[in-house]
């Protein structure tokens, strides 16, 4: 899983029926130090994340497992909101 910051949301009126009711968020991957790294991506929210929050997301086939028993066509899902990180 990777760290990211929620930078916005994506609205699609017309979308795959399996995406109905799902929240699409735009996230910017970040380093542990909080620096942007790489390109923003769209992820489906599984935990109620909001703008500005630091989250972690899962990618690939496993991203759809966050919505079982529903079948959701996604390759990126937000699965946790970061409260804090405790570093050594």
């Amino acid at each position, binding site marked *: 899983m990777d760290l990211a910051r929620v930078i916005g949301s994506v609205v699609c009126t017309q979308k795959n029926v399996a995406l109905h009711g799902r929240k699409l968020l735009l996230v910017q991957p970040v380093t542990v130090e909080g620096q942007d790294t790489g390109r923003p991506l769209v992820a489906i929210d599984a935990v109620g994340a909001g703008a500005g929050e630091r989250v*972690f997301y899962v990618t690939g086939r496993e991203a759809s497992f966050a919505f079982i028993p529903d079948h959701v066509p996604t390759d990126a899902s937000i699965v946790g909101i970061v409260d804090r990180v405790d570093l050594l």
Partner: protein
Amino acid sequence: MFLGRVLGNLVATQKEPKYEGKTLLLVQPVSPEGNDDGEVVVAVDSVGAGAGETVLVVVEGRSTSIAMDQKLAPANAAIVGIVDDIDWES
């Protein structure tokens, strides 16, 4: 699988239910020589690893689900071993 060094842990109150009770650790991938190599990942711990330890990490596929004792877990990385030693063939 890759080798990594545990940097610390990540606290998340709000998370996908399948993560309930699991420890999340930040892992810096390292080369066999111990140099940082690549981006830090968030991994689910299945062996009781702690900060500073060198660990064995599985990524993607069924392996992370098995490590989490779940049928289909929404996770990309899991720690499955704490490295004691690497024996080099010289």
